[in-house]
């Protein structure tokens, strides 16, 4: 778990900053209790916090909390599983009404989550399975991420091509993305994977670039590179550029960041499309799902935040240069219509 | 007073390769008696001790202990038979991180009879018994690492005595003790003597020897060169037997020098040491002799800028000389062939040529790039000059014999002209022919510089020097022109006692 989120998605700082600065209208009076008055206390109990993804996630949580007039406490265990479990108890002692558990280990968090539920506190969990029917699971859909990217690949290149695939087994989100790749290969007999490679040696992009160089010289007939993680895609792009093959190969990936946008926008860039979920949106959805529970509504057990497809064409046509532009000009990226009952304030609304 | 010998060795021999270290040594130790073993470095003392204590296998000869044959194959066997050795390095005898009680009983913690569980109460009980028997007043709970050196030494000896030995061997036990600390040790040794332990005491320190010895055995070149047991003991005779007198005075044509190269005035090399004043002249070879530990190396290092003097001035060729580093000393023309070449001289990763050029890289390079041709020519020249036996200048140092290694060390510094050439124990671990070669070379090339040798062995001084200075307790106590040396006076000065005391 530890590695996975750090790996995934270096995303959406611009969005985070922008949303934080926004002014929100005074609270409407027509919200259900307890949100009819400001000052509802919730806690965010984090397992992972360093890295772009987690910064952006936090900013989303903060933005939605502010829009709801929530008093947010952030408890950060910095990858200490035992401490995270203790922090849930700490939150209970603080008298919060709701808790968001962000990542962690099932083994250490399952009991802690149950204690919170027993104390009458509403709980949602993001990206950690606490095996509790009363706790909604907020997740981003890795399968959808891979599916969107691959559908675009088929759309761009037809259904018969030779592919290079970047994959490291044993990393949960990559494994889920891999399932989709396996399905797609089954569905289109014309798609053949001639090379599979990948490494997590850091800096990852550099190591993957070295591998991709070798793969490209062994298999000059590769038309499509599927690199379902932006660090992989970055490495593949470096290799493709270095080999001077950028006009003959297209790269499809997952996740997005400002530097990824710059890489995709380069003239004749091989990086054709990526699919991404906005971590700030995931943060917002986490708070909204919790708010629904507190208001006595049911957000459903699985709250899935849908990804957005971002193509090179989008970026160029709409002149998107960074994550702020992306949120501003690609509304589906800035906001997900998930856990949005009519009374729910939208922190992204202008 | 003298009973039958508890320990007896007959005709012990030992060789390492072709090098015979012990050439038939016979030795007796008596109960309730301290036998002092004297010998210069390389005389074979430590080899003898290691054979008795079971570290080395003996080459030839027999040993007996209390009337029975004694042939230990391991140190443990020797200890079990009743021969216990406390080695020179105190920290070898104790485990610094454990407390005193555990140290005293350490040997009972292992071995076949040892109990599986560590029982602190029993350990302390046993330790107390050991400490009481020796009159040891040390907190048994203290960690050894917190103790003074003397206390550690006591613990090491007490630990050895926990075996109730018949023979106790002490190898230079006072070498790192202060005199007050040494007094405590002597009191302990007196006590053991009364208890009937036969003690073999190895030391260079005349004060120790005068205080303790019932008998003195001198060793030289792998044989016993003298046994002294008539009271009063003939200390000078013992020193004489140890240092030897096989002198070939006719080989030396003594030179006197008028031109002063180095003048030392009031130099004190350690706190509390008496000042040293001396002059060295051009073309002169001067040897400073004295027993181990009298400050010879300290003086050499002071001259070479390794350590700073406490007080005093030096003038080199008319200019004030106070080197702040070895580099400055070399730049001023002062070279040192350090003692213990393995430790201080040989660069193991380098071949002969690279070892020779080491101090003079700057002079052998152009724009910082080493001139390898010049390096090679120099090395070949030095190999030729000193008669270094090797296949080529590219040979590894490890392929050379000790004597040839030492020649390389000397050659390293003779490749350039020195103002003052210092050699500290240059004949250590060197066979006789290499020693003659080096000495001859030193004398032949002596003009144009002052040459200063530090040697423990008197022979080496007499064979090589024009003048001999005697050092004792960190100062110069005597001076002799090497023409008709008053050996009695010289030996008395070396032994550190009043003149002709025993005669």
């Amino acid at each position: 778990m530890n590695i996975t989120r750090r790996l995934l998605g270096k995303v959406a700082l611009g969005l985070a900053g922008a949303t934080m600065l926004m002014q929100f209208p005074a609270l409407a009076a027509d919200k259900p209790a307890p949100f009819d008055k400001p000052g509802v206390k919730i806690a965010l109990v984090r397992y992972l916090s360093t890295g772009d993804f987690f910064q952006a996630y936090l900013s989303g949580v903060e933005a939605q909390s502010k829009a709801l007039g929530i008093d947010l406490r952030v408890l950060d265990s910095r990858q200490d599983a035992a401490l995270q479990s203790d922090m849930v108890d700490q939150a209970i002692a603080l008298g919060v009404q709701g808790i968001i558990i962000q990542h962690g280990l099932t083994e250490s968090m399952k009991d802690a989550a149950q204690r919170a539920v027993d104390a009458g506190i509403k709980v949602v969990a993001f990206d950690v399975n606490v095996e509790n029917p009363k706790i909604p699971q907020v997740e981003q859909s890795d399968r959808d991420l891979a599916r969107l990217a691959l559908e675009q690949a088929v759309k761009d290149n037809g259904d018969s091509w030779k592919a290079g695939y970047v994959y490291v087994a044993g990393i949960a989100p990559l494994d889920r993305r891999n399932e989709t790749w396996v399905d797609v290969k089954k569905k289109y007999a014309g798609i053949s994977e001639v090379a599979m490679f990948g490494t997590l040696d850091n800096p990852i992009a550099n190591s993957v670039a070295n591998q991709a160089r070798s793969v490209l010289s062994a298999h000059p007939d590769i038309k499509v590179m599927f690199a379902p993680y932006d660090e992989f895609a970055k490495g593949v792009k470096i290799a493709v550029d270095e080999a001077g093959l950028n006009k003959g190969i297209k790269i499809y990936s997952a996740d997005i960041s400002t530097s990824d946008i710059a890489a995709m926008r380069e003239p004749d860039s091989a990086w054709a499309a990526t699919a991404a979920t906005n971590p700030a949106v995931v943060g917002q959805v986490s708070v909204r799902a919790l708010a629904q529970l507190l208001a006595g509504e049911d957000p459903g057990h699985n709250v899935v935040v849908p990804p957005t497809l971002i193509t090179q064409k989008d970026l160029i046509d709409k002149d998107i240069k960074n994550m702020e532009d992306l949120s501003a000009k690609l509304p589906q990226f800035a906001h997900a219509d998930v856990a949005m009952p009519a009374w729910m304030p939208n922190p992204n609304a202008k | 007073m003298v009973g039958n010998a508890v320990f007896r060795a007959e005709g012990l021999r030992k060789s390492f390769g072709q090098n015979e270290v012990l050439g038939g040594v016979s030795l007796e130790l008596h109960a309730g008696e301290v036998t002092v073993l004297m010998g210069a470095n390389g005389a074979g003392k430590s080899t003898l001790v290691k054979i008795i204590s079971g570290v080395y296998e003996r080459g030839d000869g027999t040993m007996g202990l209390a009337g029975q044959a004694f042939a230990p194959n391991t140190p443990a066997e020797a200890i079990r038979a009743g021969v216990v050795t406390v080695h020179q390095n105190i920290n070898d005898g104790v485990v610094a991180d454990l407390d005193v009680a555990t140290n005293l009983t350490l040997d009972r913690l292992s071995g076949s009879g040892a109990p599986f569980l560590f029982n602190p109460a029993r350990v302390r009980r046993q330790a107390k018994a050991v400490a009481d028997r020796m009159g040891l007043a040390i907190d048994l709970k203290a960690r050894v690492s917190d103790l003074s050196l003397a206390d550690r030494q006591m613990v090491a000896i007490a630990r050895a005595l926990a075996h109730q030995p018949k023979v106790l061997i002490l190898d230079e036990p006072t070498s790192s003790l202060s005199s007050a600390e040494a007094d405590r040790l002597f009191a302990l040794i007196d006590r053991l003597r009364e208890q009937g332990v036969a003690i073999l005491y190895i030391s260079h320190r005349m004060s120790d020897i005068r205080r303790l010895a019932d008998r003195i055995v001198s060793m030289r070149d792998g044989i016993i060169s003298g046994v002294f047991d008539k009271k009063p003991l003939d200390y000078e005779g013992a020193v004489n037997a140890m240092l030897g007198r096989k002198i070939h005075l006719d080989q030396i044509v003594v030179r006197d020098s008028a031109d002063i190269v180095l003048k030392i005035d009031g130099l004190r090399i350690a706190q509390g040491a008496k000042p040293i004043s001396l002059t060295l002249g051009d073309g002169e070879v001067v040897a400073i002799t004295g027993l181990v530990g009298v400050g010879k190396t300290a003086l050499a290092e002071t001259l070479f800028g390794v350590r700073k003097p406490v007080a005093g001035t030096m003038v080199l060729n008319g200019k004030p000389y106070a080197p702040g580093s070895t580099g400055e000393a070399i730049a001023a023309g002062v070279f040192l062939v350090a003692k213990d070449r393995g430790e201080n001289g040989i660069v193991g990763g380098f071949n002969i040529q690279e070892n020779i050029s080491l101090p003079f890289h700057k002079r052998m390079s152009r724009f910082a790039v080493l001139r390898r041709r010049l390096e090679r020519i120099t090395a070949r020249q030095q190999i030729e000059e000193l008669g270094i036996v090797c296949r080529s200048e590219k040979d590894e140092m490890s392929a050379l014999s000790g004597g040839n290694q030492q020649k390389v060390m000397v050659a390293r510094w003779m490749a350039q002209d020195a103002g003052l050439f210092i050699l500290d124990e240059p004949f250590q671990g060197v066979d006789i022919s290499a020693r003659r070669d080096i000495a001859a070379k030193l004398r032949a090339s002596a003009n144009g510089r002052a040459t200063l040798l530090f040697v423990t062995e008197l022979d080496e001084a007499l064979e090589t020097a024009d003048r001999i200075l005697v050092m004792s307790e960190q100062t110069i106590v005597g001076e002799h022109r090497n023409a008709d040396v008053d050996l009695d006076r010289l030996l008395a000065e070396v032994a550190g006692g009043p003149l002709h005391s025993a005669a």
Partner: protein
Amino acid sequence: MTLRDHAIRYGFIVLLFGLVAYFAIAADGFVSPQSAVFIFQSVAITGVLALGVTATLVVGGFDLSIGSVATSAMMAAAYVMVVLEQNALVAVVVCLLIGAIVGLINGWLIVYMRVPDLLATLGMMFLLVGLQRIPTEGRSIATGMTMPDGSVANGKFSDAFLALGRHRFDFFIPNLIPVSVVVLLVLAVLIWFFLEYTRFGRMMYAVGSNERAAELAGAPVKAYKIWAYVISGVFASISGILLAARLGRGDIASGNNLLLDAVAAALIGYAVLGAAKPNAFGTAVGALFVGILLQGLTMMNAPYYTQDFVKGVVLVVALVFTFALSGRGRR
């Protein structure tokens, strides 16, 4: 020379050629000028690091901080250009300064504070991994990023800087040799010449083999040791510059993999030509060896963990060559 001597001396080179021959047969497209250049390019970054660490190995030390010096330099280059909006020259100078300063501090800790080399540089490694994240609060640096204070960084990697990673020189075939390969080759020749032919290099070996003897031969041993760490730091920062130029952004990373690969290359270098000591030529061959191995294995679709395994095997074999067979390892 006996057969055994020959085996020790040329064994590793023979192994290298054997490997090339095997891949030439087994992997299509392995033998081509481009492929050769790929290999050099892929080892350029770790190779430069390895050459630097060789300098510290020569004086009997070790530098664990090189990986994090490289990534810190990469972050610094990105910060200077993207946030401070300075040009390529400033970025390069800042990186080199960082390397030199870290080297000085390492040397000072080891020589004057008497901290054992492994511990001092381990501490420095952690320090740098943390330090490189402080200015951006743990974010990677890219054009358009939002700074902790909410402002947007609008500088960009200058073309001149990116050229360090992307420009190619013509060499018989147009656009063949990348700048990083040229940098690697130049630095390799420089450090090789420095260590083998100058009096400074010779004395560094003496310090590494017998410090006391070197001091008694008049060498300022402390200064030599500190210089070795400065060399190592500066080389590491050069490798960081190449990394930044290749990636085109400042990526937070510990650089531990860079460190391990570099150290492996330097240690493999011990075995080359039976040197049994750290040496620049061996290090370069060691880096190349690893590069060829990884290129070949990747071309044959071997997954990443088998590559680590093979790397480990090569290292162990090299160490056996050095220490057991030659019998010169005991110093």
